[in-house]
């Protein structure tokens, strides 16, 4: 097991300099989620208009994996249609489960692929995505997994 496989440079960069951190003034929806087994927390806020994620912010406390995953997610979904964001969530989940996926759509998120070899950290990587699925469940017919 190589630590470098898990802690890629781009993850550390997002952990240290999280993107889209803070709160939205024009938020449509705000979701608080925590991982009760370890205490990680996230508040995810979205501004959804015309079926599109117009803006997004998050605040949270947690490990490098959970916070980097949240930061990268906000960058990825900003400007996406809701169904597009949800399908990205699906691809991301598959990757974290260790399944072969088309990494093209993932961008920076591909750097979290190593998490699939660290079962204890899977929940960390998925926390922000669960928040996303919960947040948009009212804005689409798609049901989160």
């Amino acid at each position, binding site marked *: 097991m190589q630590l470098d496989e898990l802690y890629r440079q781009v993850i550390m960069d997002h952990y240290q300099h999280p993107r889209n951190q803070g709160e939205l003034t024009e938020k449509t929806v705000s979701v608080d989620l925590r991982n009760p087994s370890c205490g990680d927390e996230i508040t995810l806020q979205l501004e959804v208009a015309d079926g599109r994620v117009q803006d997004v912010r998050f605040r949270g406390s947690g490990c*490098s994996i959970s916070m980097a995953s949240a930061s990268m997610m906000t960058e990825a979904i900003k400007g996406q249609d809701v169904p597009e964001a949800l399908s990205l969530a699906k691809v991301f989940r598959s990757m974290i489960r260790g399944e072969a996926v088309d990494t093209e759509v993932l961008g920076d998120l591909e750097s979290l692929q190593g998490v699939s070899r660290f079962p*204890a950290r899977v929940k960390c990587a998925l926390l922000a995505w669960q928040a996303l699925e919960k947040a948009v469940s009212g804005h689409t017919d798609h049901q989160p997994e």
Partner: protein
Amino acid sequence: MSMEDVRKDFPIFEQVINGHPLVYLDSAATSQKPRPVIEAIDRYYRESNSNVHRGVHTLGSRATEAYELAREKVARFINAPSSDLVVFTRGTTESLNMIGYGYARTKLREGDEIVLTPAEHHSNLIPWQQAARATGARLKYIPLQADGTITLEDVRGTITDKTRLVAIAQVSNVLGTIYPIREIVDLAHAVGAVVVVDGAQSVPHMPVDVQALDCDFLAFSGHKMCGPTGVGVLYGKRERLEEMEPTYFGGEMIDVVELYEASWKEIPWKFEGGTPIIAGAIGLGAAVDYLTGIGMEEIRRHDRELTEYALERLRSLPGVTVYGPEAAGERGGLVTFNVDGVHPHDVSTVLDSEGIAIRAGHHCAQPLMRWLEVPATARASFYLYNTKADVDALVHGLNTVKEFFQHAIG
């Protein structure tokens, strides 16, 4: 037996984890199991497996005898005056919940007070929150000092003539603090309150004598003291257990059953509805024999020596914050800490890559995490099979953590 030989009794150490020998520093979560315990359970299933207290056949008698012998061993281990004051349960959580349902809910009235500390494990907190909600009783907290200890003056200030129940851990699972149980018991008894002691972190690690403590109830788990998972103990004074209601109804626990009512067996069996945890209790009996063979004083001395060494080494590491009392003599065998700027999960993952198992998270003590003003902590906990070399490995691992994150974060 010397402590150096102890490690050889634990088959789990005959393996490598991620290319390193296993350094197991998570015994406060669950302990490893020595060969005699594993063999006792194996032998029971091979030679004596049968239900207890009912079959009139040979195996039935053999199983019953072994199960009741385990009860006697546990009673001697905690110096209970009689083995019928020992109830087998699934573990500390179940024992505490049984007191919450079978005792607190029937005894507490509106306006009564339950006294706790903010350092309690969720298992010794939520059952009382629930009992308070159900009865109209009120929770009160003995304040913690900066190092996690409490003062008897504060205990005196918190316990009033309205206090009916005091629930406290003998050793904090996060801070390691050893609380002055006997003194608390005396103050509680002076106002007629009963005292529930959460012994999950004390009974496995130090001599615990229920008569010397004079506590009304003591709860602990088998799996933290070299026994199997799924078995634990509820000890109670005779009067307390007799006035406590059963919480599980069905086979095994009854005396006479009519169509519209039923009566219960004597203690302890009225609390053991259904087929009891036979193999678990026998395994726990073997664990008690094993620990007694080494000696609880000796185990306490060993834990304390390792804790002292770990405190000294961890405190000398720049960027590492250690929580809890200053002196090893005031704490159980565990050290809770954080590495500046690195989340405990990340600490744990890096340590795991060197074969070192620690606990990271809130340790089932969210109110205490808020009191410490941290979202989570890392915890290294020791037991009889640990050595100073394990502490050295931890320190080496923590240096790797710092180097790695410094390098990775840049």
